[in-house]
């Protein structure tokens, strides 16, 4: 890769040496517009040159001074803020910058304006007064090593130069060609005040709302780390500049900012408004004009000098010619308009669309996965996605998150971050994306939720891995759960993120909609695919309130664990071994029991794990629970009180109401242990079963009131034999039994 101009290109050994050389020699450095460099610099055909010229025209912000030929115009770029420039750069750096921008910052888009002696110093004096009004919050100290790691992983190197030595271990053994396109130089960062650099990195759109340096959502610490890395070589030695900051000089600088045209691209946000810059000549002058002014090979006089090289001048001239002859050049088809937008913001540095762009192979080595499972996704694991049809894929609210609000990232396994480009430049193009990506034949999906088949639990079954489920969770995680296989986009935000029509289109034929996707066509050819798509949608719409699918739901998630608390768990359910009116009592001691409120007797004891509440809490079918522990013991079926002393009936005899018992409910003691209340004839019984710590078994206590002669108590302990019920003076009888 060689071109005629000298720009800071990464070479195999120490790319930034080039910058130093450039500074030292004052070498010419043409402005770097990444999209132009990558797609248009060597364009042979006229249409491509014209597109390249238009891109330069937008990026160099020609329309800030000139009216374009024809009626249609392009928007000027949002202006770069100088509001706190005096805090960011010292006077010497400011003077050097304004005197000769491209020498100071090779590749800059800022043109050189011819200055009379002393004017650079006056400008610097004025700009130095533009400082933060309030003392900004202190920034944390940064770590060069962490900054290097961040710089090479969060996505900076999509546009800026990587360090070869920072290539991730996974790519270490591979050949390392330098990126084919020039990187956007970082020279200015060296001159920045550290704290200002940290703040700039955290929120670049605040200073530069045009979004060409997007926000990577760095935290304060991350920004401090990256700043430390960018300034790792230490502060540069400034050329000695004397800046006299007398009021007169400052006033002169302020006047110059206004009269030299700085305000075409900058805003000072100063309290005193500065008159706008005079407009340059209209560009629809005679054809010969395209060789003069800014477009002259060596601009003279008041014309700003962008240091355009021959390719760039040719492209600009071609674009101007096209503007004069083609009234529709600025009224492109939506797809072309999207392509122009992507070139301007350099979306192509990360995303491919219509076969153009995507991360360059030499830079792709720096895009890493944070979840080793994602290696099996190939390029889809570490590289940002192709933008096949985002205009019909994403909802407006998700675009908003992605492009300016933040919080729209859905690939937690990728280290690179989707940066925010700001609302100002992003919002106007959303409607164009939608038009560009429209389907010829609309997809119809019913997401009303009122069709019988649209039940969330059908969708849940489809998501899962059992009972005919499609197994979506093999790759897609949900809520706090990773998928059980490779990690792809978790589905939590599906209904906020995707348009339902796209959801359906994708599910019915993934490969056609996202060429190269690893998603299998699970629904293809299924007779009820349309309904199943709607079921999945219904489930995902309610996902935060729904039971996780089979496969992601861990067995035991609904397990009741009395051992974790000081008090027993009392739980009514259908229970194997204790019937449909069971009251299960889970004890922290691990010795559990169940009372059958229909038969009015203790029915079951067991030890260890208690119960799983899943079916009781979640299932419509309400499958009976069953004891999870060991030593499940069915207690004798007889009733506790009898009028005769005969042998217990083999089948237990009549129970509950048939035996004259009436269940009254239960009360919880101070320790939470329930006492069951029931009546039989005149007897009023309070029946408590609790773990007996002495024996390691159970102790049952019955308090009987109501009197009446001739009653016998038949216990449930293995060796129990009937004994008479004797009331004391207070009319109470207390009966106890313990076992094992």
């Amino acid at each position, binding site marked *: 890769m060689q071109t005629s101009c000298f720009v800071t290109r990464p070479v195999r050994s120490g790319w930034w040496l080039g910058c130093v050389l450039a500074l030292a020699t004052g070498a010419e450095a043409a402005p770097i517009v990444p999209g132009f460099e990558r797609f248009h610099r060597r364009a042979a055909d006229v249409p491509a040159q014209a597109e390249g010229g238009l891109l330069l025209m937008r990026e160099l912000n020609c329309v800030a001074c000139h009216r374009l030929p024809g009626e249609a115009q392009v928007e000027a770029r949002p202006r770069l803020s100088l509001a706190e420039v005096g805090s960011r750069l010292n006077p010497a750096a400011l003077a050097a910058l304004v005197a000769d921008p491209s020498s100071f910052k090779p590749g800059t888009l800022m043109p050189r304006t011819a200055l009379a002696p002393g004017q650079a110093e006056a400008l610097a004096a004025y700009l130095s007064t533009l400082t933060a009004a309030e003392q900004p919050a202190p920034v944390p100290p940064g770590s060069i090593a962490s900054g290097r790691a961040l710089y090479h992983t969060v996505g900076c190197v999509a546009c800026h130069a990587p360090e070869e030595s920072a290539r991730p271990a996974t790519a270490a053994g591979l050949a390392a060609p330098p990126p084919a396109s020039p990187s956007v130089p970082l020279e200015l960062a060296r001159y920045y005040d550290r704290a200002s650099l940290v703040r700039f990195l955290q929120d670049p759109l605040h200073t530069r709302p045009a979004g060409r340096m997007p926000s990577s959502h760095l935290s304060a610490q991350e920004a401090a780390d990256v700043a430390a890395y960018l300034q790792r070589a230490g502060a540069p030695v400034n050329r000695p500049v004397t800046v006299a900051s007398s009021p007169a000089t400052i006033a002169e600088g302020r006047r110059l900012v206004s009269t030299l045209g700085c305000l075409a691209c900058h805003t000072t946000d100063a309290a005193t408004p500065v008159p706008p810059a005079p407009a340059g000549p209209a560009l629809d002058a005679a054809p010969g004009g395209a060789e003069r002014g800014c477009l002259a090979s060596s601009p003279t006089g008041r014309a700003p000098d962008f240091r355009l090289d021959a390719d760039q001048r040719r492209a600009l001239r071609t674009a101007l010619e096209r503007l004069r002859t083609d009234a529709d050049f600025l009224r492109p088809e939506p797809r072309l308009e999207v392509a122009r937008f992507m070139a301007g913001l350099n979306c192509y540095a990360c995303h491919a669309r219509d076969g153009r762009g995507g991360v360059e192979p030499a830079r792709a080595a720096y895009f890493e996965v944070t979840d080793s499972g994602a290696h099996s996704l190939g390029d889809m694991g570490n590289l940002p996605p192709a933008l096949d049809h985002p205009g019909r894929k994403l909802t407006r609210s998700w675009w908003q998150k992605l492009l300016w609000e933040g919080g729209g990232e859905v690939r937690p396994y990728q280290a690179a971050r989707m940066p925010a480009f700001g609302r100002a430049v992003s919002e106007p193009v959303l409607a164009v994306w939608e038009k560009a990506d429209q389907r010829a034949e609309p997809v119809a999906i019913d997401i009303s939720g009122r069709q019988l088949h649209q039940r969330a639990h059908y969708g849940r079954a489809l998501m899962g891995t059992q009972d005919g489920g499609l197994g979506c969770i093999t790759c897609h995680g949900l809520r706090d759960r990773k998928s059980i296989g490779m990690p792809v986009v978790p589905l939590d935000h599906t209904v906020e993120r995707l348009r339902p029509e796209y959801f359906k289109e994708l599910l019915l034929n993934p490969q056609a909609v996202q060429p190269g996707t690893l998603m299998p066509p699970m629904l293809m050819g299924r007779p009820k695919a349309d309904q199943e798509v709607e079921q999945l949608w219904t489930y995902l719409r309610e996902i*935060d*309130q729904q039971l996780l699918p089979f496969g992601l739901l861990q067995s035991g998630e609904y397990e009741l664990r*009395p051992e974790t608390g000081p008090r027993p768990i009392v739980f009514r359910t259908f229970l194997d071994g204790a019937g449909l009116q069971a009251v299960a009592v889970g004890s922290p001691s691990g010795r559990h029991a169940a009372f059958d409120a229909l038969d009015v007797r203790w029915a079951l004891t067991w030890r260890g794990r208690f119960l799983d509440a899943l079916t009781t809490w979640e299932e419509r079918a309400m499958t009976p629970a069953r004891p999870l522990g060991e030593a499940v013991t069915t207690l004798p079926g007889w009733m506790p009180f009898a009028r005769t002393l005969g042998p217990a009936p083999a089948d237990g005899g009549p129970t509950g109401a048939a035996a004259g018992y009436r269940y009254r409910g239960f009360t919880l003691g101070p320790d939470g242990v329930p006492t069951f209340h029931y009546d039989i004839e005149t007897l009023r019984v309070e029946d408590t079963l609790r773990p007996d710590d002495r024996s390691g078994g159970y102790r049952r206590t019955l308090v009987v009131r109501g009197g009446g002669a001739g009653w016998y108590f038949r216990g449930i302990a293995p060796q129990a034999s009937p004994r008479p019920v004797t009331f004391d003076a207070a009319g109470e009888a207390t009966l106890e039994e313990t076992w094992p």
Partner: protein
Amino acid sequence: MAMRFTLPSIIRTPARRSAAGRGLPLALAWLALVPWYFAPAGRAAEEAGTKPRAAYERTPYALPSESKFEVSGIAVLPDGRAALTLRKGEVWILENPLDDPTRARYRKFASGLHEPLGLTWHQGALYTTQRSEVTRMEDRDGDGVADTYVTVAAGWGLSGNYHEYAYGPVFDPAGNLWVTLNVTIGSPAKLAGHRGGTPLWRGWAMRQAPGGELLPVAAGFRSPFGLGLNAEGDVFATDQQGNWWGTCPLIHVQPGRFYGHADSIPDTRRPESPVKDPGVLPSGLTVVEAAARIPGFALPAVWFPYVKMGQSTTGIICNQTAGAFGPFERQLFIGDFTLAQVNRVFLEKVDGEYQGACFPFLDQMQSAVLQMAFLKDGSMIVGESNRGWNSLGSRSFGLERIRWTGHVPFELQTMEATSDGFRLTFTEPVAAPSSLTPSQFKLSSYTYLYQQAYGSPETATQDVAVDRLKVSADGRVVTLTCSGLRAGFVHQLVLGPLQSASGQSLRYDRAYYTLNRIPAAGR
């Protein structure tokens, strides 16, 4: 996810993500394409292109994250707090229901219940109906958590089949406790090591006098989720369209009556049954014919035409807020599960029997509406859960509050039957009364088949001629004189474009009057 008895007593909840999401607007966009749904639901104002000032506003409560707030019962306590049952078996207290719903505070009061589907406050205690019993919960030691679970009514049968839901209780003014019981649909539970249960009184309404036994009262219910009182203290129940129910009804529950579902018939042969065995059911009848031919068969007070007025009626609540909930005092509000909405009912007595009209009230709730209650300030609190079925809306469960904004909407306040037509009372005077014509009042009538198959189409539909009309001096009452009224039939009224004197369009333009009886002349 262990259930604990000791939880922090106060839980602050962050506001959930926006309830609207993307689903709802799109759902509605879809509905707009379906004329048979959208048109009958009839938002006249939208059709007329004017957007009336909202009369009611709806706000979801923030929910605690500890439990799924599938709210199945609501009781407003004397101190203004709201007690809530959750389907998973808990009772929670919403401490500050009148504050900003996004700052709702909750504490758990009871747990371990078996799918409670109703809650009421009666004589100083909370009562709920579990699968197998009515339970009174008390906090005797005053620590804010229930420690006493008294079984106050039980005795109905349970086979373990999923459909055996039990609802209530409500207490009537005489102190009688009422519950309603679903029929069993499908097979009983398989219980290892234990004998199964037997269904008993399934599909019945039950009543227990103070100090008495729980006894069967009326039969023929299918899935009578809603149980409530009107302002006079009479007991009403709602039921679900399905087998034997052509569409959803509102039933005045009266002893000895049979409302139609056949599964309850075997128990009419028990000695305790106050309902006479209706015998072998004839087939191929409309419900109007069934009422004439089947002994004991009673028609509901109101039919909710299917889809037009919901698909699955749920809770019942009577508005006795002294005007704090707008111009519908003493009317009933009825929830709907599938369409996630709240409907409104006006009742009147003709020949001693209730009948009346239903009207749309508020749709686009966030999930299936189960229960409603009125808070101290006259706003309505709505409990929701769509588990097991599906519903409109974007949530699986939740809790919302509906407040009257103070703005009186223009709509039908009441629709009364006369001997030869209907008397319509509007909430505001109509504009230009003298220019009203009968063609602005489209009436038709239809009924439903009484059959074992699920649901019924509208049957025997006829137009009803509106011959003339008269507007009251104050402009609020329009009396229609009609020909072709049919006793027993639902009379559907569709209002043409109407404006109020203050310039409002109608909020809803439909009403459905169940004309079981045509009043004698002179009413």
